């Protein structure tokens, strides 16, 4: 009977190795004049946050493809192209920490994108010490409150930066809705949502009701929805919650007769539709960019869904909601490399830190991203330069589809 | 000859517990195997039921060789065991225990007839049909175990230490039940540490020591054998 266990363990090993092969094997080809730079991405490719992570993997990869097909970067006699290595952290701190360590120490990655809050926070000092340039989308403002020489930048308009404009727009657009309550995860991400909303509600003149926190991995939201509905809020904010959760919350809110506004973050109508159905998501507010021609949406991001579908590979073949966002963020990094004419993270960082530097923000026609702005400097002081500033959309779901509410251009 | 065992050798927990044992049981007789603890009695019975496999030797039931046959097939062929320590299903009711015994019998009328027969031998069971078997007294549990074995409609009833752990009064009661069953024409193989009880009931007796048959014969002859008297019936002599 020992043989049975042995062969089972071998099978287990084989499958694990196979899984490793599929998700992220890297090899670098070194030619005398051809050099491949590995761009490391740590992001959730599975679980409720997978729509974001898969979007990030797609967006960064397509931006790298565009960088390469536009000729890459030639410095002296060396021609540089980019290659993306994406690891799955399943939105889990331990896995994220492990992945970032692996990319930094084992794989020698010099340019990185991270996603998971606690993992990114924990390893930010390490990345600075190792001089690894990191773009992150962590909502927690502590990611910006690093030493001034930190190598980590937030290339997404964190909710603390967006909250004032988001809530002010709601107040203006829906003048009859007067109170707001937050339903969010019981983690640092949720704490940021709560604190930012509280401040922005006061600024916008909305009544701020007690927030409700839930555990990640919740399958039945009825108790939490019951609790929040008991406060009778006009607006329920689920910003920062994973797509799967937002879908289930929308379904439960609808089931319990909520008639107010359900506002969330960068979540695609198509994904919500699959989880919740059409009625529960009608009228929801998101921060997703509706990819419809016309207006300020650039043709570059309009073409992304078709490219995602046409791309070969196991994690492709589907267009995700927020690929446009990550595509644009990666574009900032790659534009900075081009402007700095360097693949040395320290030199690229110096370009980013340069006062008045402007980078291409691909999502918007003639879009510009800067680091630091009057608004972010007001919040983060000397560290304001670690926060990106760019235009961002507010989206209203109508008939199960994303439509533009407005595009906010920060001052 | 209903059961024939030829030169049986069995390993139990890597030790040769049965070292070439032969015995037979004729139809309508009560044969007993007596021996001290560790003599190999239970190992023989486990092999007989198919729970253990012989390293060599043959077991014949009627004209069929059964030493490679599966446990459930052996039961269907007609060998029922009352295992040592009774091994009733404690969480099941008395009736359910009896029904479990009739697992191989699909005809309802046949099951009912068997139940009636069991009630006849054990009127006490009928009173406790819906009681949880685990709550019965030791003697009642032994009766249930025997009744359960009878429910398999056996040609040969094998009993492993039915007197174990029972009070002297209960031992006598079980003894008289076995006697009645024998008188009703059942073929029984009785394995006992209680030599006095076994010799009193059996037609033919085998004495087992350290995995070997050291003595066999008619029970009354064995009873009068001085060695047996000294080793197995000593207590009765001194009292």
């Amino acid at each position, binding site marked *: 009977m020992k043989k049975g266990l042995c062969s089972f363990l071998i099978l287990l090993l084989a499958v694990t190795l196979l*899984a490793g092969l599929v998700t992220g094997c890297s090899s670098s080809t070194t030619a005398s004049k051809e050099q491949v730079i590995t761009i490391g991405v740590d992001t959730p490719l599975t679980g409720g946050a997978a729509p974001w992570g898969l979007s990030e993997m797609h967006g960064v990869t397509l931006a790298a493809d565009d960088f390469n097909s536009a000729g890459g970067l030639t410095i002296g006699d060396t021609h540089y192209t980019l290659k993306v290595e994406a690891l799955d952290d399943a939105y889990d701190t331990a896995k994220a920490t492990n992945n970032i360590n692996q990319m930094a120490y084992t794989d020698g990655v010099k340019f990185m994108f991270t996603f998971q809050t606690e993992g990114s926070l924990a390893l930010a000092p390490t990345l600075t010490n190792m001089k690894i340039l990191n773009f992150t989308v962590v909502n927690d403002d502590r990611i910006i409150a690093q030493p001034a020489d930190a190598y980590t930048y937030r290339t997404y308009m964190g909710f603390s930066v967006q909250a004032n404009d988001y809530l002010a727009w709601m107040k203006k657009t829906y003048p009859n809705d007067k109170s707001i309550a937050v339903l969010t995860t019981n983690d640092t991400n949720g704490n940021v949502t709560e604190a930012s909303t509280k401040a922005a509600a006061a600024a916008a003149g909305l009544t701020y009701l007690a927030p409700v926190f839930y555990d990640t991995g919740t*399958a039945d939201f*009825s*108790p939490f929805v*019951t609790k929040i509905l008991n406060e009778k809020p006009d607006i329920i904010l689920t910003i920062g919650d994973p797509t799967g959760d937002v879908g289930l919350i929308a379904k439960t809110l609808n089931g319990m007769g909520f008639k107010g506004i359900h506002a969330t973050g960068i979540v695609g109508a198509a994904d919500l539709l699959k989880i919740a159905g059409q009625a529960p998501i009608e009228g929801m507010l998101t921060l997703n960019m509706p990819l419809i021609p016309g207006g300020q949406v650039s043709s570059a991001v309009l073409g992304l869904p078709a490219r995602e579908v046409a791309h070969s590979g196991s994690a492709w073949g*589907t267009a995700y909601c927020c690929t446009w966002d990550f595509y644009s963020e990666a574009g900032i990094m790659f534009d900075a490399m081009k402007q700095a004419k360097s693949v040395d993270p320290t030199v690229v960082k110096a370009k980013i830190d340069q006062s008045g530097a402007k980078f291409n923000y691909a999502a918007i026609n003639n879009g510009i991203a800067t680091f630091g702005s009057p608004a972010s400097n007001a919040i983060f002081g000397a560290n304001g330069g670690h926060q990106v500033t760019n235009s961002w959309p507010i989206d209203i779901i109508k008939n199960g589809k994303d439509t533009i509410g407005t595009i906010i251009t920060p001052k | 000859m209903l059961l024939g065992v030829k030169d049986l050798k069995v390993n139990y927990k890597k030790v040769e517990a049965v070292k070439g044992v032969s015995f037979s049981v004729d139809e309508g007789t009560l044969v007993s195997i007596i021996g001290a603890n560790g003599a190999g009695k239970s190992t023989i019975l486990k092999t007989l039921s198919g729970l253990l496999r012989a390293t060599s030797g043959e077991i014949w039931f009627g004209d069929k060789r059964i030493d490679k046959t599966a446990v*459930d097939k052996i*039961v269907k062929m007609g060998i029922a065991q009352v295992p040592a320590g009774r091994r009733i*299903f404690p969480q099941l009711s008395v009736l359910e225990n009896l029904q*479990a015994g009739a697992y191989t019998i699909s005809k309802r009328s046949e099951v009912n007839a068997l139940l009636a027969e069991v009630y006849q031998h054990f009127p006490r069971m009928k009173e406790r049909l819906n009681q949880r078997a685990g709550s019965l007294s030791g003697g009642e549990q032994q009766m249930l175990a025997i009744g359960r074995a009878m429910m398999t409609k056996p040609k040969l009833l094998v009993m492993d230490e039915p007197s174990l752990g029972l009070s002297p009064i209960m031992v006598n009661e079980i003894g008289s039940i076995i006697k009645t069953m024998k008188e009703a024409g059942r073929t029984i193989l009785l394995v006992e540490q209680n030599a006095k009880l076994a010799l009193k009931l059996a037609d033919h007796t085998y004495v087992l020591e350290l995995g070997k048959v050291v003595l066999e014969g008619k029970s009354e002859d064995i009873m009068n054998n001085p060695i047996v008297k000294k080793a197995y019936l000593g207590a009765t002599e001194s009292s």
Partner: protein
Amino acid sequence: MAQIFQVIVNALSLSLIYILFATGLTLIMGIFDVCNFAYGEFVMVGGIATYLIVAKSGLPYIVAPFAAMIIVSLIGIIFEKGIFYPMRNRGGLEPALATFGSSTIMQTAVLILFGGMPLGVPSIMSGQFKIGSAYFPMDRLPIIIGGFLMITLLFLFVQKTKLGLAIRALQQDQDAAALQGMNIASIRVVVWVVASCLAAVAGVLLSSISYVSPTMGSGYLLKGFAVVIMGGLGSIPGALVGGFVLGFVDSFGQTYLGSYSYMFAFAFIMLVLIVRPQGLMGKR
């Protein structure tokens, strides 16, 4: 306190979710004395079948449970013949570890085949029903009806049929059961098929109120074990009682204690086990 009625309604449907998940788990744990860490993946495969049949192929919902039962039963039989039967005499740890590994294999396989995105499955029923001040979402109705139906069928099967009797006998004494002429190997397969069917139906019903993903089952597993242990290992009425207790504790805890509810729920289970180590309905 007008919401208390709503909390009770929530608790009811939450309880049935736990019960649905726990019955098959307790059946296997009770009979084989082994933890099946891959049980969540059995449920997940039921969800995948629902996704393929209802969301992908557009077939009627009623096809899903039957297809799911066939697929999951086949997986169950593979587990029995590949892991549990060959390892039956080697204690609880080795087969438990093997199921742990299998759970990872199944998650990875589904991840490779279907990707990590949440796969949406339409609800069986939609809309809501208002009872006084409380809302009852209609998509929970199939869970409640299906849950009670399955518990009843399982109870009747185990208590009233000959095979059910054999399963209970097997649970208590395998050798003694064999001595009654029961074919242990084939009865074990029956147990797996029954547990697999329960998991499959649970997968269909649970995915109808949520979504399908490779890790959907493992999320329920901890609560499932909690229900099984609290109710009493192997006890079907225990799974019923345990599911209701945990459902109510969770519903009230999450509503009134919010994020401390996990701690509260497990502290409650510890308390139950201190007072009754054999579980609420367990027998010593």
